[in-house]
């Protein structure tokens, strides 16, 4: 979650030049999507909109130009978790915005807080613009709580130049990953294949989901929590083994320390998602062209699936007096050609099928500029994401509990699987206190 925000802020620096070119080019090309505005009765409607990231400004400018009846006022109130926290407070106070960006994993907690409006009455025409697994990220039992904006299918981002120097290949399975990690330590004792970051809840959740974990499920208002299920524990044990044998280093990501090592070629991969090249470019500009992406290693040979890490949707708030106009805005922002073009230009992977199609014919990001098959691998990753990933009503609690428990485990050299169990227990207890029905322990 922290990373997607970073990705945004770093993109500001790296692509400021592109941005101006973009905003001037989009004004005339807003032909697709729904330009007819329903709220034309009494002068233009003004929408308050909260979102972070660099793609918003040019997109909104284009929207305002093409929609004289709906004018959007944009405020950047901070990254994903900040926006979520402020949105909760503001809607409770009755002065929230009309629309806001929400990360997929915090959507359920926003719904439970009663902050978001069901816009299913207005989204019938865009449902087919998204793949079912993406659409499922924002729709629950027929109710629609947002239009998907960007997604982060997971891939392995690696320093290809260093890989060639060390004569190693990107691993196809996690078992290979362990072997390559050992190989790297042997060939260059100062270098690690990867680091294990204790604070990366979303990353670990993605790896566990890839292994078959289901952290939250809900049926008839009864929840099943699986943060410490067999698959998740197996993933924890896998990383435990790597840490214990000093094959990966357990340390936080994107610190000055980490960045420095990455720049020195002492950290070779980052198992993350499609937004990662943008983030890494921000800290290791000199290595532009040296990096590449590979499919994320699989847990079983022959398997072919990955999870999403990060990404957000554009939701309409319950307190909005212009829900229909806000829904129109949300749809345009994520399905219009011009809007998608801005996303691609600034390194965001669009959630819409047309946007992903457009991305596949564009140039690869600067960090991986020399990789010819970049978009082939990216598109494949996007196509084989796991459907029906569902998040719980207290993901932020889970995330902070995970960070604390895992950081403690790494520090005290206690088992990571115990940290997962601890997180699970805390999440279940929190849900029970609030009054959710939770099945099982």
């Amino acid at each position, binding site marked *: 979650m922290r990373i997607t925000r970073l990705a945004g802020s770093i993109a500001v620096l790296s692509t400021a030049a592109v941005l101006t070119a973009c905003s001037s080019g989009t004004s005339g090309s807003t032909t697709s999507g729904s330009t007819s505005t329903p709220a034309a009765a009494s002068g233009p409607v003004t929408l308050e909109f909260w979102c972070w990231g660099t793609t918003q400004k040019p997109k909104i400018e284009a929207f305002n130009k093409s929609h004289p009846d709906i004018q959007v006022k944009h405020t950047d109130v901070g990254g994903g978790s900040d926006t979520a926290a402020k949105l909760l407070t503001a809607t409770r106070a009755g002065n929230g915005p009309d629309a806001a960006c929400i990360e997929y994993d915090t959507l359920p907690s926003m719904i*439970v807080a009663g902050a978001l409006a069901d816009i299913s009455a207005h989204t019938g025409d865009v449902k087919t613009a998204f793949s079912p697994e993406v659409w499922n990220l924002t729709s629950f039992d027929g109710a629609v709580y947002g239009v998907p904006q960007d997604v982060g299918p997971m891939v392995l981002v690696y320093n290809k130049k260093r890989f060639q120097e060390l004569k190693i290949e990107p691993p196809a399975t996690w078992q290979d990953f362990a072997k390559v990690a050992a190989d790297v330590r042997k060939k260059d004792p100062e270098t690690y294949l990867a680091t294990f970051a204790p604070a990366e809840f979303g990353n670990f959740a993605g790896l566990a989901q890839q292994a078959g974990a289901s952290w939250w499920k809900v049926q008839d208002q009864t929840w099943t929590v699986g943060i410490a299920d067999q698959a998740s524990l197996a993933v924890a044990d896998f990383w435990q083994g790597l840490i214990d044998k000093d094959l990966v280093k357990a340390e936080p990501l994107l610190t*000055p*320390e980490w960045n420095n090592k990455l720049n020195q070629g002492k950290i070779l991969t980052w198992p993350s998602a499609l937004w990662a090249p943008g983030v890494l470019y921000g800290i290791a500009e000199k290595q532009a062209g040296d990096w590449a992406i590979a499919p994320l290693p699989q847990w079983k040979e022959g398997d072919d699936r990955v999870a999403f890490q990060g990404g957000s949707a554009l939701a309409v708030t319950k307190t909005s007096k212009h829900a229909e106009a806000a829904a129109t805005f949300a749809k345009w922002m994520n399905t219009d050609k011009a809007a998608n073009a801005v996303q691609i230009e600034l390194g965001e992977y669009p959630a819409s099928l047309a946007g992903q199609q457009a991305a596949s014919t564009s140039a690869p990001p600067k960090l991986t500029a020399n990789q010819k098959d970049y978009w082939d691998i990216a598109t494949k990753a996007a196509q084989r994401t796991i459907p029906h990933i569902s998040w719980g*009503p207290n993901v932020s609690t889970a995330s902070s509990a995970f*960070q604390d428990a895992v950081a403690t485990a790494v520090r005290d050299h206690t088992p990571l699987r115990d940290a997962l169990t601890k997180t699970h227990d805390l999440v279940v207890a929190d849900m029970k206190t609030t009054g959710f029905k939770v099945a099982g322990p």
Partner: protein
Amino acid sequence: MTALPRAERRSGAPYLFVAPAVLLFVAFLAVPIGYAIYLSARGLRLTGKGIFGTREEVFVGLDNYVKTLTDPGFFAGFGRLAIYGLISVPLTLGLALLFALLLDHAGSRAKRFSRTAIFIPYAVPGVTASLLWGFMYLPSTSPFSYLTRELGLGEIAFLGAGGIYPSLANIAVWGGVGFNMIIIFTSLRGIPSELYDAARIDGASEWQIAWRVKIPLVAPALVLTGLFALIGTLQVYGEPTTVKPMTPEISGDWVPLMHIYRDAFVRDDLALASAASVLLAVGTLVVSVVLLKVTQKRAFGGMQ
């Protein structure tokens, strides 16, 4: 009988004069405190509406207090504060007193420069100071670790398990000495020089003057700075929060205020955070009053 209306007239004016202060106190102190206490008895609980149900605010009595008081994590935070405070408070006060005495010493040179140099870190915002020191602690950016590495001694684990308390305390000491020094120094300048003359006539050395005349006379300033340092310690938040992303040593509830912030804005439980805040405020008040009571006689007795 004629005295009565005059007394009534007299009794109106004080109320009028005190009104602005009372109004401000009520609006900006009493009401927020009252609201925090009210919030601490509330909680978000699930109701049946919506696909997942909806959380709504209800009265939960003392639930939040019970939860806070039975949470080992909250008290572990105070334990960490104690270690941190045991390092930072005596060091800050000791160094501040030492520098103040040195500056006050007649024979010392470059006083104006020294005073400014010692005071400048106080003007550096806490977050900036924490980032600055954070960079100096991280192995690959640390000049200290660079030196020890070049000398073949390995790296210094500033942000490791043992180093984290002294490292964080160092940031506070670096930033706090200047401020405390100024308070003690100001107090030293207020001592009449006749006392020194008298001491010198009696044959006291500079060392004895410092120990037997100056320090006892600046005791009120020492108590004041001690109280500030103690309250400051209980309110530690900025340094560990800023350094947190750099090390797994610092958890999200490392100190009580981080615990409260996490409950309020990460876990979206404002009510629980309010209860913990009330407990922390009451605790701070009790500790301050006890400290003042214990030190009052010693500090202010001689001045009366």
